């Protein structure tokens, strides 16, 4: 096996000291000396026609510098996918949810801006509310968007193989319906931004975003600016999980207000605004019909799904495809049919959240597979072994498994959790369950159709040769990508980690589609590796030329030049270096030739050494409609065993143990991979047990805060046994692929399956609140009593 000096280790994160000491700057920590503060008027009604907007009182308030509405902003439509641009910067004809943006103010301070917003008079004509998919899909229902009949934002109809014929030949066919509730990404840092339009007509937007590149394009489009004059800079970001993966209205409003006033304009969401901006997990209703043979072979899946999308498309067109395509793995399935609708309602828009589109489908199906295994008298682990895909397999929907450690994952959690010892032996009220997961390692295509590189990277060596500076537009949002890329640079260049500096998250540094779809380690990592190798090649070429040897006879490791042949003398190079660095403290003496010396030589000979790398996926399969959503250069997979306890008197669930294995291809940073696994499991646990955004009959959100929208605390989350499986992905840098999102996949179904083991009850609705669990336990007890009575 290759020996690496930096990657595959547990190197501490390069940003950790700044974050530990409070020095790391997030958006709200940035201020400009002459900045104004912005505030947005958001709709108090969920569905209404705008009759009149009167801003005259707001304009007269002392300290107000600008008031803008759709009249100033124009009506350029934007959104996430060009196929569904259904938003304008401000509402002009109607409002579609409570929180929809109507106008905005820039003023000398926050208080004045807020006061001015309250002085904007809007006359509304209320429209009928559509607060569920049933209401929205009803014949003759009013339309939320005139262009979308039936309030259908998007629909998908796909069939691979012949599902009806296959089901007819199955020995067991089972249909179940399963649903979740709308969720919030609930990152700790509220979105914020500063828009700054300068005297030369250049616009700089500082924003807490996951995707500087897409924000740059959206801002340029809506504000009608050339892309080259718009720069998006991402400071440290306090988590995103999907909701920060597209441009939000606040970002464009801040830029517009800055263009109007000539001053930087700052805005930060309140927690309530974070909830209203939403763009997290949809509410899904999945109906799955699965057919299997007596020997346990799963043959066919008929899948219907309805997604409640809220007022705008956001990522929804991708979500509705992912909800189907991601069931193409990790099992061999010959026949799959998928019919789905994403429906508009008068609620905040749903979008992408960790495990985009696939999490609830996975929960529903993995639970159903458990039921089928039980009916066939098979152990759930054996049942999965029987059906899982292997390296080199292609799914019925054309997803190619270039590396696939599914079997290793299942074996690992089975053995580490004590599955065989515990399964079937736990007392009533205690349960153990398992499930598998599957996810893309980066979307195969950009959100807009384009031949663009998905990422570019630049490695610039310092003139003294002692440091390498990586420039990438990728987004460190907490997942550790800066550290990952510093480690890849160090390894590929052959220098120690502390010789690498990273500048990231700035559109001036190149193109990078950003932090979504679990793409950066594979895609950006690939570009970074190539950039570092390019810089190294340039240095070695100069060195080889000077020494009159071949480049292939030299390598670099951990800062030291290694000559493969004997008798190479580099005395002249060293003497030159020593001469011009007289007085320096780090003079090389009897040591082997350092990379710094070689890099200095390269600078003297040819000027600044700049290595460049880029990445674009190879051609990926699938010619059918929608094939672009789900195809990926590689796929991650995972397995999990959960042990839990249920208080049979209260319905309260306690998760005691989680054993999780994830095939990340190759761990660039082992601690970071584990951190992604543990964090994913936390989010899955919260969604399974208590997370739900609630509304009243007027469409008002009832719990836009952490007091009532519960996310797991340190007391809810057990210790996780994380197991890293490395299948060596041929298309990933050093064999690496995703972990950030795929790791959440098995959590909810493993909890459901463990809950069944504990209670004998199958649940088909999330979250598993004590009320829901208690009611089910009592119903079951009543049924059992009635049954005994009949006997």
């Amino acid at each position: 096996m290759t020996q690496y000096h930096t990657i595959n280790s547990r190197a501490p994160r390069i940003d950790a000291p700044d974050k530990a000491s409070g020095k790391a700057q997030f958006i709200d920590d940035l201020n400009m000396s002459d900045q104004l503060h912005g505030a947005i008027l958001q709709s108090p009604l969920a569905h209404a026609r705008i009759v009149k907007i009167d801003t005259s009182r707001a304009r007269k308030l002392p300290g107000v510098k600008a008031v803008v509405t759709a009249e100033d902003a124009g009506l350029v439509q934007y959104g996430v996918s060009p196929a569904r641009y259904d938003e304008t910067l401000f509402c002009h004809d109607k409002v579609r949810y409570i929180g929809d943006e109507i106008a905005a103010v820039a003023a000398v301070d926050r208080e004045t801006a807020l006061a001015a917003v309250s002085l904007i008079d809007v006359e509304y004509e209320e429209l009928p509310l559509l607060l569920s998919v049933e209401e929205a899909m009803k014949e003759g229902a009013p339309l939320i968007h005139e262009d979308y009949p039936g309030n259908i934002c998007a629909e998908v109809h796909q069939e691979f193989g012949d599902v009806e014929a296959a089901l007819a030949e199955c020995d067991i066919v089972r249909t179940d319906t399963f649903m979740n509730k709308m969720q919030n990404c609930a990152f700790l840092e509220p979105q914020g931004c500063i828009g700054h339009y300068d005297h030369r007509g250049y616009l700089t937007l500082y924003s807490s975003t996951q995707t500087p590149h897409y924000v740059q394009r959206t801002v340029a489009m809506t504000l009608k600016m050339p892309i080259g004059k718009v720069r998006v800079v991402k400071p440290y970001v306090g988590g995103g999980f999907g909701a920060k993966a597209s441009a939000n209205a606040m970002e464009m409003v801040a830029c517009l207000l800055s263009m109007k006033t000539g001053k930087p304009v700052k805005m930060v969401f309140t927690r309530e605004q974070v909830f209203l901006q939403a763009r997290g997990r949809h509410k899904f209703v999945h109906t799955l019909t699965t057919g299997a043979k007596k020997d346990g072979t799963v043959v066919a899946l008929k899948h219907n799904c309805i997604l409640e999308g809220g007022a705008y498309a956001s990522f929804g067109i991708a979500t509705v495809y992912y909800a189907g395509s991601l069931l193409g793995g990790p099992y061999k399935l010959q026949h799959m049919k998928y019919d789905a609708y994403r429906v508009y309602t008068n609620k905040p828009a749903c979008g992408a959240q960790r495990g985009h589109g696939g999490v609830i489908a996975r929960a529903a199906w993995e639970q159903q597979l458990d039921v089928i295994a039980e009916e066939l008298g098979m152990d759930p682990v054996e049942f999965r072994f029987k059906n899982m895909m292997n390296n080199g397999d292609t799914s019925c929907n054309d997803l190619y498994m270039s590396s696939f450690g599914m079997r290793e994952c299942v074996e690992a959690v089975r053995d580490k959790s004590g599955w065989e010892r515990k399964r079937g032996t736990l007392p009533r009220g205690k349960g153990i369950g398992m499930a598998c997961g599957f996810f893309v390692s980066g979307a195969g295509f950009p959100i807009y159709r384009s031949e663009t590189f998905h990422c570019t990277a630049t490695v610039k060596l310092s003139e003294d040769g002692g440091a390498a500076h990586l420039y990438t537009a990728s987004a460190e949002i907490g997942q550790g990508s800066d550290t990952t890329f510093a480690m890849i640079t160090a390894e590929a260049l052959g220098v120690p980690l502390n010789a690498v500096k990273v500048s990231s998250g700035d559109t001036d540094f190149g193109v990078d589609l950003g932090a979504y779809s679990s793409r950066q380690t594979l895609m950006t990592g690939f570009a970074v590796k190539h950039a570092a190798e390019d810089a190294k090649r340039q240095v070695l070429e100069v060195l080889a030329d000077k020494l009159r040897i071949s480049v292939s006879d030299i390598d670099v490791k951990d800062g030291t030049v290694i000559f493969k042949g004997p008798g190479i003398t580099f005395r002249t190079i060293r003497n030159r270096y020593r001469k011009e660095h007289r007085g320096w403290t780090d003079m090389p003496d009897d040591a082997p030739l350092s990379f710094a010396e070689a890099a200095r030589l390269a600078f003297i000979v040819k000027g600044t050494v700049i290595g460049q790398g880029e990445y674009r996926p190879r051609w990926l399969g699938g010619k059918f409609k929608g094939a672009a959503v789900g195809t990926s250069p590689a796929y991650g997979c995972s397995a999990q065993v959960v042990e839990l306890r249920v208080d049979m008197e209260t319905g309260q669930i306690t998760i005691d143990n989680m054993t999780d294995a994830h095939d990340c291809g190759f761990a660039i940073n082992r601690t970071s991979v584990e951190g992604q696994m543990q964090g994913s499991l936390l989010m899955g646990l919260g969604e399974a047990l208590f997370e739900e955004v609630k509304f009243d009959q007027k469409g008002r959100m009832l719990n836009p805060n952490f007091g009532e929208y519960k996310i797991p605390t340190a007391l809810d989350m057990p210790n996780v046994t994380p197991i890293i499986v490395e299948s060596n992905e041929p298309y990933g840098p050093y064999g690496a692929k995703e972990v950030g999102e795929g790791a959440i996949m098995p959590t909810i179904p493993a909890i459901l399956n463990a809950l069944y083991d504990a209670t004998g009850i199958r649940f088909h609705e999330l979250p598993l609140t004590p009320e829901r669990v208690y009611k089910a336990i009592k119903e079951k007890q009543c049924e059992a009593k009635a049954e005994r009575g009949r006997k």
Partner: protein
Amino acid sequence: MKIVINVTVNQKNYELAVEPNMTLVDMLREELRLTGTKKGCGLGECGACTILLDGQPVSSCVMLAVEAHNRKIVTIEGLETEKGLHPIQQAFVEKGAIQCGFCTSGMVLSAKALLDDHPHPDEQDIRKAISGNLCRCTGYQKIVEAVQSVSEGEQTS
């Protein structure tokens, strides 16, 4: 009308004129530019704004600046010395307890309050002590391990 208060922050005495409705977190962030204290919810629910007030961890977003009159405050900026990071900070760095870092300041201070009172807490004590500090990234495990490592003397500085 502004009110004058005397307050000690990170062992430095300040005389400040503050609005009566200014929160303590805003005073720290806006008046003293100590932006290491974060604002995550503004309602005392997430713990990102945790500071030590006379040694006790409190949410500075639900306290008024005037309530800090004649009291001693420690913020995250007060932990580092010329020698470097505080052992708890160092442990967070080494154990991988930091991802996005937005909860870190509050988390470290809650841990400090615990360890100052109970130098050898068990795992459950640690989990209770940080249960008012929400983290959406780490699953808490590496944070708990970091605090444990300090109590077990793994960290010195």
